[in-house]
């Protein structure tokens, strides 16, 4: 059982990282699209960002030095990532369910990091762990872990309840959506139960991780906890293949679409990129497009489809 848990944990981490990176790379390699920003754009100058204005509000805007308000953007990102600001502003009923769920996940990620740190410290600096560091880390990961799993479970239950009972959501809810939330509930529920009900003498959590790092298969993982770990690991591996990977997608929807107001300057990088796209050969079939698969976008865009039609 211990070997199985180790193998699944390692493979799940590999799959999660690989699939997440692959998705991010796929989006990043997509062609630069036409501008499609939405205001407010938080990296605008603070006086303009406050009312949602853009550099187009300045006379002869192209003669001004572009200032990128990084602080404004970071503040907006922080509020959105940590507190789900948009959801709170526009759908507070859902926010009461979604925020605990997401914040719980953040705390669980923090727990994994803390436990991993404790495990590494146990191997590398055992003396420090025997001293003050051990109890500090122990309290820290217990607090984040208990709070995280409680919030995530409460949030997942709230989201499932809403999805099953809200008539606005039900028609758009697929069996897959229900399955996803149930998986969260079962995985975290079993994990929490496995931790809470672990028998006396069971190895402490950092020891389990240290066992994984040293591949100590003699370590005995309590059965319920092992099932919880397996379900949670498989869930992590599954997420990047679903719409729940919006932690990747959201970066691009915000930075590459909503907030992308980058100006195309003559002779600049954007212009060079566009030059390649203008050589693409579209195959749109409608007659007025005049794209037969041999003509480039540049040719299509400079063709007047009405030529030859009598005025």
């Amino acid at each position: 059982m211990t070997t199985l848990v180790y193998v699944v944990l390692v493979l799940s981490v590999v799959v999660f990282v690989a699939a997440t990176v692959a998705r991010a790379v796929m989006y990043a390699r997509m062609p630069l699209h036409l501008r499609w920003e939405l205001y407010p754009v938080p990296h605008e100058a603070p006086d303009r960002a406050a009312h949602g204005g853009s550099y187009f509000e300045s006379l002869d805007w192209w003669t001004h030095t572009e200032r990128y308000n990084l602080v404004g953007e970071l503040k907006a990102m922080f509020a959105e990532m940590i507190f789900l600001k948009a959801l709170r502003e526009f759908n507070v009923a859902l926010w009461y369910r979604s925020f605990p769920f997401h914040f719980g996940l953040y705390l669980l990620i923090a727990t994994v990091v803390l436990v991993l740190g404790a495990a590494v410290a146990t191997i590398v600096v055992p003396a420090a762990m025997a001293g003050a560091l051990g109890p500090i880390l122990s309290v820290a990961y217990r607090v984040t872990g208990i709070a995280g799993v409680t919030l995530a479970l409460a949030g997942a239950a709230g989201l499932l309840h809403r999805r099953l009972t809200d008539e606005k959501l039900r028609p758009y809810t697929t069996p897959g959506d229900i399955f996803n939330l149930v998986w969260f509930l079962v995985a975290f529920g079993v994990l929490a139960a496995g931790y809470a009900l672990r028998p006396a003498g069971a190895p402490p959590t950092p020891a389990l991780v240290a066992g994984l790092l040293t591949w100590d298969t003699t370590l005995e993982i309590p059965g319920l906890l092992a099932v919880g770990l397996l379900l949670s690991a498989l869930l992590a591996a599954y997420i990047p293949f679903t719409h729940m990977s919006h932690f990747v997608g959201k970066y691009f929807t915000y930075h590459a679409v909503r907030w992308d107001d980058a100006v195309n300057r003559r002779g600049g990088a954007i212009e060079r990129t566009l030059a390649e796209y203008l050589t693409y050969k579209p195959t749109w079939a409608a007659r007025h497009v005049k794209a037969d698969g041999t003509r480039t976008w540049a040719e299509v865009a400079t063709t007047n489809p009405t030529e030859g039609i009598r005025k």
Partner: protein
Amino acid sequence: MTDRPKLQDMSRRDREPLIHLEPDDLKPLPAPLDDPARRHAWPPLSAQARGRYEAALDDTCAVSVPQPATPEEEQALVAKFLSGLDKLFTRENNWTFLQPLLLSMEHCAKCQTCSEACHIYEASGGNELYRPTFRSELVRRLYFKFVKHGGVLSAWQHGDIEVNWPLVSRLIELAYRCNLCRRCAQTCPIGADNGLVAHELRKLFSQEMGIAAKEIHDTGSMLQLKVGSSTGMSAEVVKDNIQFIDEETSEKTGLTVETPWDVEGADVLLIHNAGEILAWPENPGAFAVILNAAGISWTLSSALAGYDSINYGLWYDDAQFARVAIKHAEAAKKLKVKKIVLGECGHAHKALSVIADRVLTGDLNIPRESSMTLLRDIVMSGRLKLDPSRNDFPVTLHDPCNLVRLMGVVEPQREVVRAICPQFREMAPHGVDNYCCGGGSGFAIMSGHNFPDWRFQVSGRKKLEQILNAFSDCLDPSIPKYLCAPCSNCKGQFRDMLAYYGLWEENRILYGGLVELIVNAMTDVKPGFIEWEWH
């Protein structure tokens, strides 16, 4: 209201509309339109139209797609739809919007946060058909099934949908039940964009199937590329009309007004929406007064499309969009102007300033500027002698979506109005949180069958509510009120909608642009530039 339509109903083979709206279904309007006596009848779509065109969606018909004669014809159309769907997700065919479209396909959490932001959904009394995600969810299911070739597992995860001609024909109409204002996208916690999905659907129908609303294609972008303007005005005709406007404006203002044409080396190439020249001649006249008084070096262009800033391709077709944008830039290049300034037209602003920024390269990449910015500079610099007491009547300001939420030009027009209109009051909400006039994305010029009734009763309803609320303290007809809308398209919607509800006749609510208010306040001009007459 009929039962709530389900996604699967879109594939229903009968020709019965999926929904029917009764007046009681719609969001109630405030005073004075809360009076049952002022409730407007909504004529049904004629039996002839229902028999001839695909009109099985709701109470109206926007695109007038003829019903296919044979099952084989239907199958061919479905095959074309699917091939177009595939092309939307290839970089060669759709590099222009591939990334945002794919992100919206793959990450919507179906949380319905966007619904409450949609003025059409709200005005309809929350009808499921008009929920922003209804359309997007259909496209999403088609994407996973036919583009990603998902099987049973995919259908289990993403949902399934049967594709047939009834579905495609209803989707054609449904693509024209969204104003593309993107207010829904603004509220999406993940950044999914239902407005973009509607836009891309329209593109698929136009670029692959040759299907688009005739007002924006045949008599829109095609006419503009043929004669120079969607109004049908050739260069000779537009010059004649502007000369007439100069004469009228001179007489009205007491100033000598001359509009310069084709001045090589001018600082500014001003491009109006040519609809202004025909429908609201006081607008180009006022621009001429202001620019001349401020000593701006400016010109109009008589090049093909150089005198009409509209670019309807923005709403439905990338090829048409790029062609018109290039014509605009070529007109500026030919005259060697320093910058293009866009007149009072919201979609023209966004089209040429924002979207075309990644179309115009090399020497076609000529700076483009909003007239709002230039006007603010002129007014606030003190170059004009202005007397705000001439504008001492209630004024409210409409924010065109393309200018504000989609381009970030929010304050310049406000600074002007605050400076010259003592009784200015904001709508709630306003700025980047504004509501569409209901005529956006081409609706204002689409007038087939009973579609205008739909846009006055449904898509324009929320804005109507805002206008009435802004003037709630002065609805008495003895008080003239001015709805300032610095956008031709929005003005077209307001002209028709205010008349439809009798709000000029009964309550003296007039609409107009920003430049008219400025000239009305100019002390060098004879008083009364704004004529309190319906036009």
